[in-house]
């Protein structure tokens, strides 16, 4: 039974609050809050994706497109038309939601590899548009001059301030999503994953629920895209390409897809691995990355969230044997 366990969530919240303060004291990790901002932005996307893939069982290889839609809507409306960034963020989410409905309604009727290909194609098409519509998007060179965020005169203009802003969003979305999972909606999603025939016999409108989750994941990705654009003050299409969609998939698999915690752990690990830790291996970085991925898939099929269970298993076995 999925009951909320409050303790880990409280520890999680405390960790978020304390982390920048601690890292400031240790020179070796003083740039970590900066990395954590990206981990947080990715977490927003992976939480939605985890709900879509791990719970509702629908694969999406086009999530980077929604991330990009959020970023570009925010960037164009602020940098070109000078609108309020918060307002643009909301518009970005609305646009992403509309696109998700248009794409999701026909696509989510497809299954397995066909759905994977359809979402992949959607992602590539959106990427091509970002790349080709030079007048709007600046093409491959990207758009600069995107403003930062501020609220009632308080500007989120330092790494730490932005860190708290991003993780405030992540934490809220996380709690919201956990609530959804434990509600009627969450049960319906898991039911669909298990058997579509039985779900519709229980009165669940299968196609509607799939679209709803798809839209939710698109909105979260769009939010993440806006936060990204306002933080970097610059965006270009290659951030939102197919390989990023695949990277998101890897985050989910690495963290563990049947658990929302896995989404955050996966985003965190991939961010740190690809932006910081693997730097040590220089030219071998790619190979090491691939090997780690393969080892995790083989030995931790449940992802990182499966480790406690495996450890428990090892421990129990020892006890029963000894």
């Amino acid at each position, binding site marked *: 039974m999925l009951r909320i366990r409050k303790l880990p969530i409280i520890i999680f919240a405390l960790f978020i609050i304390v982390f920048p303060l601690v890292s400031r004291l240790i020179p070796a990790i003083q740039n970590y809050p900066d990395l954590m901002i990206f981990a947080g932005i990715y977490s927003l996307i992976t939480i939605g994706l985890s709900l879509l893939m791990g719970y509702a069982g629908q694969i999406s290889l086009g999530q980077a497109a929604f991330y990009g839609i959020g970023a570009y809507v925010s960037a164009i409306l602020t940098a070109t038309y000078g609108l309020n960034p918060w307002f643009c963020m909301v518009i970005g989410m609305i646009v992403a939601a509309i696109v998700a409905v248009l794409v999701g309604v026909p696509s989510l009727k497809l299954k397995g590899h066909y759905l994977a290909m359809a979402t992949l194609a959607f992602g590539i098409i959106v990427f091509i548009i970002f790349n080709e519509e030079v007048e709007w998007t600046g093409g491959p060179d990207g758009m600069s001059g995107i403003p930062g965020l501020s609220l009632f005169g308080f500007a989120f203009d330092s790494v730490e301030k932005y860190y708290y802003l991003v993780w405030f969003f992540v934490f809220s979305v996380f709690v919201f999503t956990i609530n959804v999972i434990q509600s009627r909606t969450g049960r319906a999603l*898991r039911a669909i994953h298990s058997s579509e*025939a039985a779900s*519709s016999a229980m009165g669940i409108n299968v196609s509607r629920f799939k679209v709803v989750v798809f839209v939710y994941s698109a909105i979260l990705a769009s939010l993440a895209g806006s936060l990204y654009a306002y933080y970097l003050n610059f965006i270009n299409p290659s951030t939102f390409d197919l390989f990023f969609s695949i990277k998101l998939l890897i985050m989910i698999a690495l963290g563990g897809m049947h658990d929302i915690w896995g989404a955050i752990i996966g985003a965190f690990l991939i961010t740190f691995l690809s932006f910081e830790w693997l730097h040590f291996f220089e030219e071998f970085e790619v190979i090491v990355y691939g090997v780690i991925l393969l080892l995790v898939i083989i030995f931790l099929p449940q992802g990182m969230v499966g480790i406690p269970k495996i450890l428990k298993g090892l421990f129990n076995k020892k006890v029963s044997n000894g």
Partner: protein
Amino acid sequence: MDKESRGKILEVEKVSMVFGGLMALINIHFNAKEGMVKAIIGPNGAGKTTLFNIITGTFSPTEGVVRFRGKPIQKLKAHEIAELGISRTFQTIELFGNMTVLENVMVGCHTRTRSSFIASGLRLPHDKHKEEQIRAKAMEILEFVGLAEKFSESADSLPLGGRKMLEIGRALATEPTLLCLDEPAAGLNETETEKASSLINAIKEKGITVLLVEHDMKVVMNISDEIMALNYGEKIAEGLSEEIQNNPKVIEAYLGSSEEDRA
């Protein structure tokens, strides 16, 4: 509701179904009266499950009309039909294996509750209260089908008999007025079969109409009020249980000649 429809909860009129040139059902015509147990028998491949799939909205019939309480439903989707009050079990048990026993039944309560995505995400007090009600109702149903003690086990871990009972419980949670049971006794041994029979009787006593597909003639004879026999997609007989049992066509197609051989 016109006069003719009165008391008939389900009317199937001239229903035919064609799969890629293959006639799975040919001009089927029958109805079920409120509160009765109606059994459908026939050899494998006779079209029984196809008929169930049409009634519960998995397929739309190629031709014909299905009326539930006088309202045509043959064009509706499965989840809409479930909402109207028709529920079913599956021949090849379709439980939500990744969920607990209790959760399976709670999913069954889906149609009879409402909650928006946003409300449940924000965990509004109203929503929280509803969850408690659903839980209580689901436990009640588990009590009824005799699985209350196993509420926290995963559905997949139950033995076959338990899974069959759970499927019935889950179907009951949708508060149906018509329940379609597809081979509830298949794979059960005789004691378990007897339990299943008495459960179906108890369901009937609650006033729920039951449509039953079953091969075990003992079960069929024990609990059904009326029987319809199908063969190669056609209705070959319909009537009270005793009549059907002695119908030569049914014996030839389905039961086999010798009474004693029946298992």
